[in-house]
């Protein structure tokens, strides 16, 4: 009855029509932009004869496509389009309600024969209609083009529906926010400012809380599968109209992470195209949520519009709510900056603030007050009015402090409360060995395991392991901060019999505790489980290769590797014969790094890398080796693995192969080592791509000791057990460099960086780091170095005021070499790193343990 009366009201209908006419320009622009970005490329592609014949016909014949759009599901521009639609909605509302910002227009509109409610509703309705038309038309036209090209498929309807509703709701969300803001703003400038702050303040606050939780919640670790941890992420993106629309790229990725496949649009994997397209809640939930949020905002805006004081037209900072939102924004920006700095200082820096919670909180409160107060002063320009706003700051500050305290105390002690021991089904812990060979992150493995079937997650239900895990959980949880210690982490995943998963990651401030934890875990049954997984021959194979289609990016699947790292190689338009594989291991003799590098002076621009070469290198591709390694290693203790005073017979290092025809740089992340640059450099300098061998970078190697009988049996006699060159000289620093000391030296030269603490440089990247440093300096002649390898190392020491002792006596040098070992856990061991130079030019870095330090005297 009311609606009939509403429609019968002539003034009402005419006001609606006037509103339609007033803002047509913005939806028209939106329509043209959407069309130019989505529709026109489709038409161009389809109308192109070549692609039509070779592309579309192929796609049709292979049933891999039922809907065609370009730009890879529109992902590249979807976010821009969403932002554009939100802006369009905001501009519509701003134009519609601009009459409320001027005194003379308010006089007319608020005294005419139409109520405020109808003024408001008519404008919202008009904007909604126009946004719908602007959103619907381009995708409807694309739908028509697709039907005429491929024939009808229900996917097409779903795609049209998704994009239309995504764009439409984005626009309505923007309009709703600005309509709401217009009811509480005195001027256009204030409305623009408050629209921005309103649309971003919540995402700022949520991201801030997320950050505080990540940083301060002791034990917290991101586990993507647990709903409790993803809730805030959802809330974060959902809380802003700019970010709530899900990118279809995420949906596309979902097929590799084990989620239900719900690809809409082009699908390159023909055999995986779902029969039934499902617009699941994950995709549509944010959109429907924002339909409700927009409706709520519009209703709230209507209420406030009716309450709006006309006398506040053409003012700035007169509306309390508007000022409160803007003040909250200033507050949020401030705590975003301040708390991030303070949290970082509190947790990680060795600075003044580390673990000074009260001081950090006090600074946090004071700075947030200053930010809020200044913002309000600028907005309201009247101290008395600003004072009235202070309760808002107080609420925000108290809320933030309570959240911080709650998070800082682990939700008042409840967060890290262990389940009853009898209820525990299995445990998993991280393994961190001194050389990083068997590094295993329980959390990473769990995360990847639940999202990718190719990954492994090691768990143990052995009662001894459960006890070990729970004991260390309590010990590490309760360990005190020690300012002298370096920061390390221990991870625990505890599964209960009722299916609950508790994942925690604790910082450990005690070197001693962490060292003991590492030793105990490596000596545990759990370590055998991890090793069995790592060395499982079936898991060290590359995953299936995906078909390559020209012009389309694709992902190689993640797969397992020797060291448990997650390899994901993104590969684009670089060629169609790309092969990337782990084929086996390289074997190196104990002293194998050939120096042979001549470093020329400034007047010689010839290559620096001419003579890079690896010696004593053999490729082994035998799965039995893995089994033998497992058998040998599982028998060895921590001390035998990492404090073995005997000389190893050799080493097994990761071997990779990259196709010869890779001619361009590419991104290839292997753990924390990015290779792209080094590959590029080597190729450039050698001029012969085939010379490049990635095994040079084999950072991780397993040393072969005499007691590893099964392994040695497989290696047989095909590998030399000894370096044939004679020791020429040895040099070493006159004092032990602490980790910090080495780090500080390493600021300039990577070879003394953290990695060098772990003596895996034995077969590792001394040369590559060395060359890398030199290469960097090549472009800057002022810091270009000259000399040979020995001189280079000498120079580096001397530059850091470390006295270098040279042992030129070859007999004594040989003795030192005999006592040096390539690897050692240096914890509390007062030994020395030594550089052993052979008469064939090769250099080996070794370590003389404390027990043998007398050989240096």
């Amino acid at each position: 009855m009311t609606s009939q009366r509403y429609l019968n009201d002539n003034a009402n209908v005419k006001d609606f029509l006037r509103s339609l006419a007033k803002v047509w320009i913005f939806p028209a622009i939106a329509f043209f932009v959407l069309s130019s970005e989505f529709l026109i490329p489709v038409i161009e592609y389809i109308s192109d004869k070549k692609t039509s014949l070779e592309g579309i016909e192929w796609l049709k014949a292979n049933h891999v496509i039922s809907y065609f759009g370009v730009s890879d599901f529109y992902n590249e521009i979807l976010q821009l389009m969403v932002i554009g639609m939100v802006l369009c909605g905001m501009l519509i509302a701003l134009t519609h309600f601009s009459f409320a910002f001027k005194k003379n227009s308010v006089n007319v509109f608020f005294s005419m024969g139409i109520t405020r409610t109808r003024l408001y509703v008519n404008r919202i309705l008009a904007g909604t209609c126009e946004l719908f038309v602007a959103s619907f038309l381009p995708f409807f036209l694309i739908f028509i083009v697709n039907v005429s090209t491929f024939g009808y498929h229900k996917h097409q309807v779903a795609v049209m529906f998704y994009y239309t509703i995504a764009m439409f709701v984005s626009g309505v969300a923007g309009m709703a926010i600005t309509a709401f803001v217009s009811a509480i703003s005195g001027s256009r400038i204030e409305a623009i400012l408050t629209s921005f702050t309103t649309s971003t303040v919540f995402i700022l606050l949520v991201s801030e809380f997320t950050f505080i939780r990540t940083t301060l919640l002791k034990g917290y670790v991101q586990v993507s599968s647990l709903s409790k941890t993803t809730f805030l992420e959802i809330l974060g993106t959902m809380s802003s109209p700019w970010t709530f629309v899900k990118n279809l790229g995420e949906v596309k990725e979902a097929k590799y992470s084990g989620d239900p496949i719900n690809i809409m649009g082009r699908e390159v994997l023909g055999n995986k195209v779902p029969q039934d397209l499902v617009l699941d809640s994950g995709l549509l939930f944010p959109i429907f949520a924002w339909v409700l949020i927009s409706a709520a905002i519009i209703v709230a805006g209507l209420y406030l519009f009716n309450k709006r004081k006309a006398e506040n037209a053409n003012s700035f900072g007169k509306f309390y709510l508007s000022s409160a939102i803007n003040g909250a924004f200033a507050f949020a920006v401030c705590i975003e900056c301040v708390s991030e700095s303070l949290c970082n200082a509190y947790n990680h820096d060795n600075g003044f603030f580390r673990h000074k919670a009260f001081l950090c909180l006090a600074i946090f409160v004071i700075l947030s007050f200053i930010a809020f107060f200044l913002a309000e002063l600028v907005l309201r320009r009247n101290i008395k009015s600003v004072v009235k706003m202070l309760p808002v700051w107080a609420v925000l500050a108290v809320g933030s402090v309570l959240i911080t305290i709650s998070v800082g105390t682990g939700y008042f002690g409840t967060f890290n409360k262990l389940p009853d021991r009898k209820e525990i089904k299995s445990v998993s812990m991280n393994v961190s060995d001194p050389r990083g060979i068997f590094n295993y992150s329980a959390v990473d493995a769990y995360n990847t395991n639940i999202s990718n079937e190719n990954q492994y997650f090691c768990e143990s239900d052995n009662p001894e392991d459960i006890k070990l895990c729970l004991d260390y959980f309590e010990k590490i949880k309760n360990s005190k901060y020690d300012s002298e210690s370096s920061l390390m982490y221990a991870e625990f995943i505890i599964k209960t019999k009722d299916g609950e998963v508790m994942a925690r990651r604790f910082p450990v401030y005690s070197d001693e505790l962490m060292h003991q934890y590492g030793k105990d875990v490596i000596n545990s049954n759990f370590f055998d489980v991890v090793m069995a997984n790592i060395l499982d021959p079936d898991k060290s194979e590359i995953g299936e290769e995906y078909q390559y289609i020209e012009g389309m990016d694709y992902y190689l699947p993640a797969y397992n590797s020797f060291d448990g790292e997650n390899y994901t190689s993104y590969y684009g338009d670089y060629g169609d014969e790309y092969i990337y594989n782990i084929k086996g291991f390289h074997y190196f003799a104990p002293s194998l790094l050939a120096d042979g590098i001549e470093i020329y002076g400034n007047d010689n621009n010839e290559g620096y890398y001419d003579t890079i070469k690896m010696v004593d290198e053999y490729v082994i591709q035998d799965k039995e080796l893995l089994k033998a390694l497992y058998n040998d290693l599982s028998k060895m203790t921590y001390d035998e693995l990492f404090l073995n005073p005997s000389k190893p017979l050799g080493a097994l290092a990761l071997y990779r192969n990259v196709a010869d025809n890779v001619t361009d740089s590419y991104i290839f992340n292997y753990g924390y080592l990015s290779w792209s640059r080094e590959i590029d450099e080597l190729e450039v300098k050698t001029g012969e791509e085939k010379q490049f061998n990635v095994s040079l970078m084999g950072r991780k190697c397993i040393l072969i000791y005499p007691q590893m009988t099964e392994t040695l049996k497989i290696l047989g006699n095909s590998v030399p057990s000894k370096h044939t060159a004679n020791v020429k000289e040895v040099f070493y620093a006159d004092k032990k460099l602490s980790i910090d000391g080495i780090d500080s030296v390493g600021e300039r030269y990577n070879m003394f960086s953290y990695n060098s603490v772990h003596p895996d440089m034995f077969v590792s990247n001394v040369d590559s780091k060395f060359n890398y440093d030199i290469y960097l300096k090549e472009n800057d002649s002022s810091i270009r170095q000259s000399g040979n390898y020995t001189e280079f190392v000498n120079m580096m020491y001397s530059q850091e005021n470390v006295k270098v002792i040279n042992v030129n006596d070859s007999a004594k040098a040989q003795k030192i070499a005999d006592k040096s070992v390539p690897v050692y856990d240096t914890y509390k061991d007062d030994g020395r790193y030594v550089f052993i130079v052979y008469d064939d030019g090769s250099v080996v870095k070794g370590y003389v343990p404390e027990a043998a330090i007398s050989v240096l005297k």
Partner: protein
Amino acid sequence: MIEFKHVTKKFDDFTAVEDISFKVEPSSIYGLIGYNGAGKTTLLKTAAGIYRPENGEVLMDGQNTFNNNDIRKLMFYIPDDLYFPMNSTPKSMAKFYADYYPNFSFKTFDNLIELFGLDKKKKIRGFSKGMQRQTEIVLALASKPQFLLLDETFDGLDPQKREITKKLFVEYIAEKEASIIISSHNLVELSNLCDNAGLINGKHLTMDCSVYDISQNYSKLRLIFDRDVTPEDFKDIKYKSLDIDGKIVMMVFEGDATEEKQKLNALLPVAIDEYQLTMEEVFLNEMEDKKYDITKVFE
């Protein structure tokens, strides 16, 4: 009928008008008078439903005007600060108001445009201030409202247009039995036009009566003496105001001054002349507590 019932309007902590009550009968024009910032515009905007009063209400035909769709279709407010959208013409504005005022008459609009000599197709922003005001008056009268609220409407009109406008308003209220409230600084004009007038002074309505009663309630005497006189000579006289210039004295009396005249005769003036006060003189007398010694301003 327009009825103000105990209307109070505040702007934050500042009270603009307080407890104002008066009525405007049908077929009558009410003049709202007060010095700058007294609250005339506030009162009109409250009546128009633009401002929501903190206390009291404004009724038109018994209905509250605030956000009242039905009553505001019968009411037109011409503000002091006129609003014409960019590129609007009298014709487009007529269409605009016709959408919201069901009684809008394009015939009346055309007649009035012709009467004022305006071009209905020209952009209003190009009009002079007076022509813009004439346009607004045309639009208001063509909307055929029952209640007209006019804020300083005569400002900027030339004498001829002013007379035409006055006649139009008189003719309009006679024809439509409409009620008009008009605020103005030009008291002479209001005295010729209004049936009733109200004075806002110090946030309150200090006077509310018919224009006829105003002139009847006040009398002004000019006395000429053959000697110099001082205020001390008139200490027994109950006057509203006294102005002595040597031997000449001007005195204003409120209410019946017969008794006071007898007392003055006892002072033996040479001559006594009686005058009727203009409306302006009445209001100046009412507001005389705001007197300043101007001679000291530039010291």
